[in-house]
């Protein structure tokens, strides 16, 4: 046998195997990082973790009279995120329906591209725009009329100011639209054509086809897209910090949409800088981080499963 045809001499690993293991280790580092992040978050927040931490409303980092309760920030996160979903999801769904069911090809391509670009705008830009421009629109066109006509409702109490929970929620709504719209569009486009034809053949109009053949089929995927948006809203920090007004303690309880508030993320962003390392203040902030982390992780996991399931059906279909 010709000497050149033989395999090169083997050391303890072949080159291919060596390469495979190196890449495997690098990928494994991601998992490891996640693991240690959770571990460290947990370890550092241990000194403050208690029921009183989760359900307390007072926040006082002054050494000697320290007290950490984060209920107002948990509620602040929830209320702003719910506003984002309630306002952002219908708009996103409208965009997705237009793109997948109605738009001619060239509009679909361009518009999808632009919407995905929106997702790439740094959140501090949204924050700046929110602080200098959008808050006045919210105050003048939304809050003042609401306060005038529906001011008797508890959620519209207080002086419209524009730097409050409502503005934060609306900024979040704008920020989640690119995500929710593009995932929903993908989900709708994964609906097999046979479903649309089934509806058409029964004498459905365009809108009825969308309702009967498309939306009902894609339901769970759309819910998934909305929850994906929720995940983004829950964790969003910079833009919210810039417009929410940053209240502290019991004052941050979101009893009215026109009140300054605070989310878990904005609290951390506001206070990490001034936390005294000899006090429990840093531990309390890490504790907020841990709870935020768990919340965001759960929401995202749930969303991914729902979206993945509907895209999976498509792959299995004969079409």
């Amino acid at each position, binding site marked *: 046998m010709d000497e050149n045809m033989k395999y090169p001499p083997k050391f303890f690993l072949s080159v291919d195997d060596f390469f495979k293991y190196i890449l495997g280790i690098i990928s494994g580092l991601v998992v490891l990082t996640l693991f240690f992040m959770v571990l460290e978050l947990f370890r550092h927040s241990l000194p403050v973790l208690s029921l009183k931490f989760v359900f307390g409303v007072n926040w006082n980092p002054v050494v000697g009279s320290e007290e950490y309760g984060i209920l107002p920030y948990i509620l602040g996160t929830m209320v702003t995120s719910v506003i984002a979903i309630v306002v952002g999801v219908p708009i996103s769904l409208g965009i997705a329906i237009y793109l997948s069911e109605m738009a001619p*090809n060239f509009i679909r391509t361009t518009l999808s591209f632009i919407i995905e670009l929106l997702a790439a705008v740094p959140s501090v830009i949204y924050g700046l725009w929110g602080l200098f421009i959008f808050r006045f629109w919210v105050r003048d066109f939304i809050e003042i009329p609401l306060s005038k006509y529906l001011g008797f409702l508890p959620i519209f109490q207080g002086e419209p100011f524009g730097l409050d929970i409502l503005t934060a929620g609306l900024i979040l709504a704008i920020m989640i639209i690119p995500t929710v719209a593009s995932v929903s569009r993908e989900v709708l486009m994964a609906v*097999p054509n*046979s*479903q*649309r*034809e*089934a*509806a*058409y*053949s*029964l*004498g*459905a*109009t365009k809108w*009825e086809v969308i309702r*009967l*053949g498309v939306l*009902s*089929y894609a*339901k769970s995927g759309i819910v998934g897209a909305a929850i994906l948006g929720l995940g983004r809203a829950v964790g969003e920090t910079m833009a919210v910090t810039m417009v929410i007004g940053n209240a502290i303690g019991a004052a941050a309880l979101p009893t009215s949409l026109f009140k300054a508030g605070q989310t878990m993320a904005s609290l951390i962003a506001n206070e990490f800088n001034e936390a005294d390392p000899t006090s429990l203040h840093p531990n309390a902030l890490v504790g907020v981080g841990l709870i935020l982390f768990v919340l965001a992780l759960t929401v995202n996991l749930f969303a991914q499963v729902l979206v993945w399931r509907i895209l999976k059906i498509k792959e299995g279909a*004969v*079409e």
Partner: protein
Amino acid sequence: MIGMNKELLSVSSKERVNQTYKIETENLNAWFGTKQALKDINIKIRANSITAIIGPSGCGKSTLIRCLNRMHELVPSAKVSGKVFLDGVDIYSKNVDPVIVRRRVGMVFQKPNPFPTMSIYDNVAAGLKLNGIRDRKRLDEIVRKSLEQAWLWDEVKDDLDKPGASLSGGQQQRLCIARALAVEPEVLLLDEPTSALDPIAASKIEQLIVSLKRDYTIVIVTHNMQQAARVSDYTAFLYLGRLIEYDVTAKIFSNPREELTENYIAGRFG
């Protein structure tokens, strides 16, 4: 506007109650983009009969029936010219609403396509709800009647709340037939309705189709010549977008006029 069209169509159907042809096409041409799928099709389809359309793959069989309920035009870039008369009214004329046409001319597809997130009941009732029927008693009645007509009632009467997708392939196809029948169409178009089914389920559908002839005008596309011979009264042979021969089924299969038809039926091509 829609109401007017409905009236326009239904008045003429009363006038022509003795007419033997339910559907007539006149120089029907159809395209996908620049590719011509149908060339000058002239065919007259008799009421309360089963007409089979046969021919090799890609000959335009499906396109032809999709032109009969204006489904063809839903494909982007698709185009139609010529006329299709339903009870003497051209369904392609400007003041006819395709939505109304599709309610009168129902369709069942090659692959069963029930709405998977809806129950069996809601699948059958889907078309009725589009027509604005909300009365529960009336819905119950029509759902039951349609399922009976589709020979599915006995198998599903206790499971009406189960999802349509939980049925077997043959049952799903009969569910789709029930769904199409529920809106009480006059014509039923079947696009290779048994090709995705096992032989036993297929045979059941065939018998069902024959039983429906009494109440409906049926056009069935099939690539299975035995099926065409078994179920149909008339057979049309299509080749490369042209209608080669159209006659009584027995004649087509025993003594065709055209050599092309004979070759196809003998299995020499296709």
